[in-house]
């Protein structure tokens, strides 16, 4: 019999509907994998009972002849940035340790309503700030991948959705939610040989997701196949009157319209994404990707996104600025941690609570954000960054006059060892250099695996589309997926 935990979301969904197996069998299989994978530290909270509860409900509904939901019988992992009613939600911070929401985020609520079950709350970089999942208060997430040649170094699963990427590639869950502010879905997907899509800003409601940088935060799915991503994204998307930035548009049928035939499509290759010194293997993978898309029928043209070099500094002004304000609510007054030294006044309580509750990277970004918004610096930093952000968005608009989508690398390297870049925040920030521009422009972008590098680690490609054109992004990613024949998976060592 097939190992149920090797199945994709589509296979589980279809097999469950066909009666090949019960939802309970699937949930039990994944629960067992989760329980056996403590070494990866992918979960902050495991919720096997929740997974079984949803599975039993799906089985009962099926027995009763009810029409199954889009994700009936499919257990998933939930990034611990989504508030889940009755289940601890921490954003991987000490600040929110023990915080149990009385409400369910819109996106997670939609997934449960579609029949999905929750395997647990996935670890992440603290408040989604990080690119290696080393900033979590609950410990590093370990990638299931190892370099070849007996190198036993623990590798980064990417970040901030590192629990999601690690768990999916290790078959602890067939799919998971992620959130992407500057690359937090795409970079971890690339590091672990899975795919993930950040939709157009506003497709998924932000209501109930612990905020990092409001103008950039977007939820999206992560899974092993493009189809699985399409299935999840359809469920997660949709207008939410509780989020003012939510797009009031119908949700397209992305899965039904999947097609890897790219005839008539023009792919833009932004020349600024190939700087001197670009990793040769990344560069070669990009070239292979170009050939695959040509093979799928697309035209390929070179385009220019001239302000690309300013994207990263712009991002590291805007995102921390918003974060410094968004995280002000964690003050020890109403919920979460409160450190109240003897005889402390209000200011002392703030200082003690925030000193103890936030990790170093969160503090660093709060300080950067506070600085760039402060009187005398606001115009030089924040206002200027907003102008550059507009120019970056304009770059994409102009490029899309010549092409329908862009193909770029996802990350400048494959996964690195934990601890390797921790000493130098700037080196860490460079991980986002290819993912940040699309975030600043609010465009849909997807990471899809292309192959392995010489060390045996996955390398991904990134497809960026026009606003609201997730379909073309998914279709081009599908064309790559079909041609790359990427089936590599990490050897189980955990």
């Amino acid at each position: 019999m097939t190992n149920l935990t090797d199945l994709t979301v589509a296979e589980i969904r279809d097999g469950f509907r066909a009666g090949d197996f019960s939802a309970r069998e699937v949930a039990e299989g994944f629960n067992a994998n989760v329980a056996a994978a403590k070494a990866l530290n992918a979960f902050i909270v495991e919720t096997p009972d929740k997974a079984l509860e949803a599975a039993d409900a799906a089985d009962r509904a099926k027995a009763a002849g009810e029409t199954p939901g889009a994700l009936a019988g499919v257990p998933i992992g939930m990034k611990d940035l989504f508030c889940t009613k009755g289940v601890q939600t921490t954003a991987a911070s000490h600040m929110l340790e023990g915080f149990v929401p009385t409400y369910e985020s819109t996106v997670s609520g939609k997934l449960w309503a579609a029949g999905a079950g929750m395997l647990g709350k996935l670890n992440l970089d603290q408040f989604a700030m990080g690119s290696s999942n080393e900033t979590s208060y609950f410990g590093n997430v370990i990638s299931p991948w190892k370099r070849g040649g007996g190198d036993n170094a623990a590798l980064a699963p990417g970040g901030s959705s590192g629990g999601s990427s690690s768990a999916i590639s290790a078959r602890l869950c067939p799919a998971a939610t992620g959130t992407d502010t500057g690359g937090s879905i795409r970079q971890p997907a690339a590091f672990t040989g899975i795919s993930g899509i950040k939709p157009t800003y506003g497709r998924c409601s932000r209501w109930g997701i612990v905020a990092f940088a409001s103008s950039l935060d977007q939820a999206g799915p992560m899974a092993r196949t493009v189809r699985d991503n399409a299935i999840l994204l359809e469920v997660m998307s949709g207008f939410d009157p509780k989020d003012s930035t939510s797009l009031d548009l119908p949700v397209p049928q992305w899965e039904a319209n999947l097609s890897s035939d790219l005839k008539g499509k023009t792919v833009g290759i932004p020349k600024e994404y190939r700087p001197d010194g670009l990793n040769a293997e990344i560069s070669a993978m990009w070239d292979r990707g170009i050939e695959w898309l040509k093979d799928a029928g697309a035209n390929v043209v070179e385009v220019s996104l001239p302000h690309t070099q300013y994207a990263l500094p712009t991002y590291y002004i805007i995102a921390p600025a918003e974060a410094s304000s968004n995280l002000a609510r964690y003050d020890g007054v109403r919920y979460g941690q409160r450190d109240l030294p003897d005889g402390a006044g209000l200011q002392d309580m703030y200082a003690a609570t925030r000193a103890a509750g936030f990790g170093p990277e969160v503090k660093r970004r709060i300080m950067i954000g506070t600085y760039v918004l402060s009187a005398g610096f606001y115009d030089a930093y924040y206002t200027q960054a907003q102008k550059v952000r507009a120019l970056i968005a304009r770059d994409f608009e102009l490029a899309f006059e010549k092409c329908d989508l862009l193909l770029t690398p996802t990350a400048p390297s494959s996964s690195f060892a934990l601890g390797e870049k921790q000493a130098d925040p700037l080196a860490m920030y460079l991980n986002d250099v290819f993912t940040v521009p699309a975030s600043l422009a609010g465009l849909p972008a997807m990471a899809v695996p292309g192959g392995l590098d010489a060390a045996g680690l996955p390398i991904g490609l990134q497809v960026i589309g026009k606003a609201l054109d997730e379909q073309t992004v998914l279709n081009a990613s599908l064309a790559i997926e079909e041609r790359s024949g990427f089936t590599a998976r990490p050897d189980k060592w955990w």
Partner: protein
Amino acid sequence: MSDYRIQGATGEWEVVIGLEVHAQVTSNAKLFSGAATAFGAEPNTQVSLVDAAMPGMLPVPNRQCIRQAVRTGMAIDAQINKWSRFDRKNYFYADLPQGYQISQLYHPIVGEGQIEIVLDEKNPDSSTKVIGVERIHVEQDAGKLMHDQHPTSSYVDLNRSGVALMEIVSKPDMRSPAEAGAYLSKLRTILRYVGSCDGNMDQGSMRADVNVSVRKPGEEFGTRTETKNVNSVRFVMAVVEHEANRQVDVLEAGGKIVQETRLYDPDRNETRSMRSKEDAHDYRYFPDPDLLPLVLDDVFLDECRASLPELPDVKRKRYEQALGLSAYNAATLTADADTARWFETLVAEAARIQGKSESDVAKASANWLLSELYGALNRLGKTLETSPVGPTDGAELLALVADGTISGTIAKQVFEIMLETGDKPGKIVEEKGLKQTSDTGAIEAAVATVLANNADKVEQYRGGKEALFGFFVGQTMKAMQGKANPQVVNELVKKALAG
């Protein structure tokens, strides 16, 4: 124009005043959440997840609050900005759950407008002055700390957290305590007319930050101080007076005015320094990324405009010109929207019952309301709102006098009974037999008796002491128990004395 001057040792000083008024928007729900806004509810019973700033919560603008701000802007003839934006004002305080207040610094919803004040409402010739309004923006209110609940800790009540406020910022156009008081009163009148704020300063629905500076006439503006959260018209005037004199004293002693925030202590009638500009917060304003710019379309603006009532200035002129009221009566009746509404119902009913035009009955109605009714309400410690006599009954009473059914004197008696029993005037007149008689026979008989009983006085009258005429009339009325038509009595007394 005001010639208010402070006489200092070095000469005259002019006072420059600007007011920032915070007015709580009348709406059922808060600015960015669905929580209720009732005054006086139990602590923390009107708090949504958004108001408590729970993780992942997002603000959604409440259309009604926006509408109220726009209508207020229209009522002061202000520019309405079809594109405005919300900014975050960042600071830490226990009554501010988000760690920032959502406000509008850079692009307020309402731009420049103006309010006309009358310096002395009782004086029809009093000059008027136009006070400029710089802007109106909408913002969230904060919660409230309670320091008296526990020996060592403070409690937080978030009922007010997120309630919509309008901040109405005047230009520094006022020059005396009286002007500041008149501006605040007029603004409150307009807000109540529009229905965008209840104007209840004692409940905190409206409070003013008072900016005061002094200068020698003709010189540049001096350094100003800002006295926060002053909650009555009287206190605003007191703050201006006290603060201006304090500043003059400081300056004349060779000191300098520090730009600072001050607090008013009504018990001691003085202001105290709260914090100086040096310890002012850096609020790190920036556009709220959770909210899109606020874009108003013409349909919305048209609806707002159409929903505005007749405003006080227009109403006052109409009362004077179309209804023929005195300037003072018109001003008094229009100073408050509820009073005007009461008066208009009274006039409409009086005109309907009597089959006359409103202008025919307006004067009598105004006089009765302002003297009889107000006198009675004052005596009973009641207001128009709690008045035992409503405008319909008042109109009926006026009609009974107008058609001669009862005399003015009897009307006063009837009114007293109405106040006591709440009965209709017609019923009272009927039951108590107070109907006025014009029966000449009965009156002639009464006159004859009066003249017969006072033969000596008749003698004197006929001898030229005409002042006694009133005596005979009074005696006749008394004999008729006040129910005789006074005009008929007059005629018949005159006739009998002549005879």
